């Protein structure tokens, strides 16, 4: 029996060692599948290592990583790792620490906040790849119809604009967003909490979102629905649907990940060509400071990790090093490069007219809690925030209940 197992293991390793790697990546926000396939094709041409991609929706990524990590011989050699999974996957040692691969020069050319997203218990578990964060999108033509010639600086100003747009019959619902009961809802809640000057957890890792900024954020979301300013269908929308609603000219404002920018002026899909702009997410006037605190966003940093049970770690690292390299990121400026040298490159600033906005926005990132039990924490938050949005609980009741359940999980 032992001999049979050894022979099977050798055969499996031989098959996997045949100059081919399997990459698990998302087909949602961030780099689109066509971009990744282009990068993969060039990598294959340069190195002779074949790359096979599996694209899944973001919400399926975590479960696929867990199930493929639980077996001795993994399915994937490279996986996309969201920063919210760093603590869990690091704690369970399901991915390989990359510290031995990362050079001093690489460390210095990426902002500490981005490295921090993938560091847990002193080790780095993924190579930064996607400096994803949310931005503000508005339709300047609709604003002009309503009598405004600038983007709102505060949330209160935005509400005033929305009321004017609605009152003039320009749009029924000036706002929609990805408020379905999924991870995207937590992201929306995080930036809104940031827009009221706070975070979900305090420095001691304790949930504080049921008071102060967190409570105001949820009350704001409920108010938008109650006053008919937010489309009720937002409660069923994910980020691609929110993008579709914006480019269909159904709304005047939304927030979304950087990927939405690439669709605004695509005449094959967009009804807002030449009308839509990307800007900084406004904050509440209670915290607004034009020099120090004028925007807030949520980080969606993603890295590339090597599962512990991969049989092609060296090939996997070569692929990761290639796609995350400054030269490749410079070629794919539809997403924010992670490298400071690329962000500050004068040529890049000329080619990407919104790089300055992106640089300001990313500097105002608020993070989701980095805890090993994040999946449960997020599920609880999603459930109770959604119940409040449905009107089944008041914001205070919902958040209080969420804190009680999260405390139980964290013990």
């Amino acid at each position: 029996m032992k001999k049979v197992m050894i022979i099977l293991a050798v055969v499996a390793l031989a098959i996997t060692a045949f100059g081919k790697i399997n990459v698990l990546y998302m087909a949602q926000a961030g780099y689109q599948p066509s971009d990744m396939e282009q990068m993969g094709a060039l990598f294959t041409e340069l190195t002779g290592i074949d790359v096979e991609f599996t694209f899944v929706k973001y919400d399926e990524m975590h479960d696929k990583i867990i199930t493929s990590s639980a077996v001795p011989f993994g399915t994937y050699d490279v996986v996309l790792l969201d920063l919210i999974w760093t603590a869990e996957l690091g704690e369970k040692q399901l991915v390989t620490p990359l510290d031995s691969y990362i050079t001093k020069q690489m460390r210095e050319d990426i902002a500490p906040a981005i490295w921090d997203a993938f560091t847990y218990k002193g080790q780095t578990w993924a190579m930064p790849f996607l400096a994803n964060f949310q931005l503000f999108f508005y339709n300047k033509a609709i604003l002009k119809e309503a009598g405004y010639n600038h983007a709102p600086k505060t949330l209160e100003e935005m509400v005033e604009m929305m009321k004017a747009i609605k009152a003039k019959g320009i749009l029924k619902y000036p706002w929609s967003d990805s408020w379905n009961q999924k991870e995207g809802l937590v992201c929306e809640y995080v930036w809104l909490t940031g827009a009221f000057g706070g975070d979900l957890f305090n420095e001691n890792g304790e949930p504080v979102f049921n008071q102060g900024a967190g409570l105001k954020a949820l009350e704001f979301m409920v108010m938008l629905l109650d006053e008919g300013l937010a489309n009720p269908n937002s409660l069923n929308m994910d980020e691609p649907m929110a993008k579709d609603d914006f480019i269909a000219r159904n709304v005047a404002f939304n927030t979304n990940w950087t990927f939405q920018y690439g669709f605004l002026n695509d005449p094959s899909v967009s009804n807002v060509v030449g009308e839509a702009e990307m800007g900084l997410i406004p904050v509440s006037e209670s915290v607004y400071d034009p020099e120090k605190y004028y925007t807030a966003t949520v980080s969606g940093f993603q890295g590339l990790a090597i599962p512990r049970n991969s049989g092609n770690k060296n090939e996997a690292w070569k692929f990761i090093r290639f796609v995350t390299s400054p030269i490749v990121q410079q070629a794919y400026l539809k997403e924010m490069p992670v490298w400071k040298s690329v962000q500050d490159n004068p040529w890049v600033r000329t080619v990407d007219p919104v790089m300055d906005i992106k640089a300001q926005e990313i500097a105002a990132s608020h993070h989701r809690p980095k805890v090993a039990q994040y999946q449960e924490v997020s599920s609880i938050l999603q459930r109770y925030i959604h119940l409040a949005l449905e009107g089944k609980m008041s914001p205070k009741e919902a958040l209080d209940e969420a804190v009680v359940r999260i405390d139980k999980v964290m013990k």
Partner: protein
Amino acid sequence: MLLPALAIVFLVIVFPICMAFYLSFTESTVTGTGIKGDFIGLKNYIELLKDDLFWESLRITLYFTVVSLLVEMVMGTLMALVLNKQFWGVKMLRSLVLLPWAVPTVVNARMWQWIFIGSDYGAFNKLFVKMGLIQNPIVWLSDKVPFEGIPIIGSFFEWIGATRALNMIILGDTWKTVPLVTLLLLAGLQTVPDSYYEAAAIDGAGKWKSFWSITVPMLKPVIVVVLVLRTMELFRVFDIIYIIMGYKINVLSILTFQEGLVYTHLGKGSALSFMIGLIILLISMFYINALKEKT
């Protein structure tokens, strides 16, 4: 001679079930070096029985199962009765009726997701607005319940989780599965001799009386098979709900998936799986006892 077959049965069925059953008595999770856990006895089962979320999930699953079964049995019977008649084109119609059943489950779910989109570009909204049936797009997958706001009845629908979203999913799911029920009932109908109906007609029985006195008793064995089969599948529903609503509609399978794979609480996930299995077994035994012939 039997050893290879027994070995396969053991490896593929017996061993995984025993392993999962053992896991249900542990607090286990996935780590880089394999599954690690501690034996905790019945704690998982007790915690589940005390968890409000489990009971809510059970209610929603029961509602989904009962309503879907009702729709499938009524529609399936009506369609089987029609297809049992002889008329021009009945053979072609019998083949066409099977088409929805041939659609893969994931494709069916995605298709209905697009049909139900609450914006003006969703198929239902576009069609109904064009036909003048509605003026504004409807959010088909909303959390509103029938008779919302009305005391007792509204609260009841809220309590069993009968949201508009779930009712729409029932529509999408039964669209696909009614052909299977129709086919099984049609096969049963074809074993009922015409002479029984002729004799009943001679004795003065009308169509309704013939249906209840002849058709239904003769179809009992088939009905038991359909009920047991469909109850098992409906109780375990996962794909269509997960694809359209994610974790929003928390039926038992979704809860199991979340506990076992998302939170990696393998023990609790296993315990939930066995509880689902036990409930299905009890329901099946109830059917068989209720519908068996009295000798």
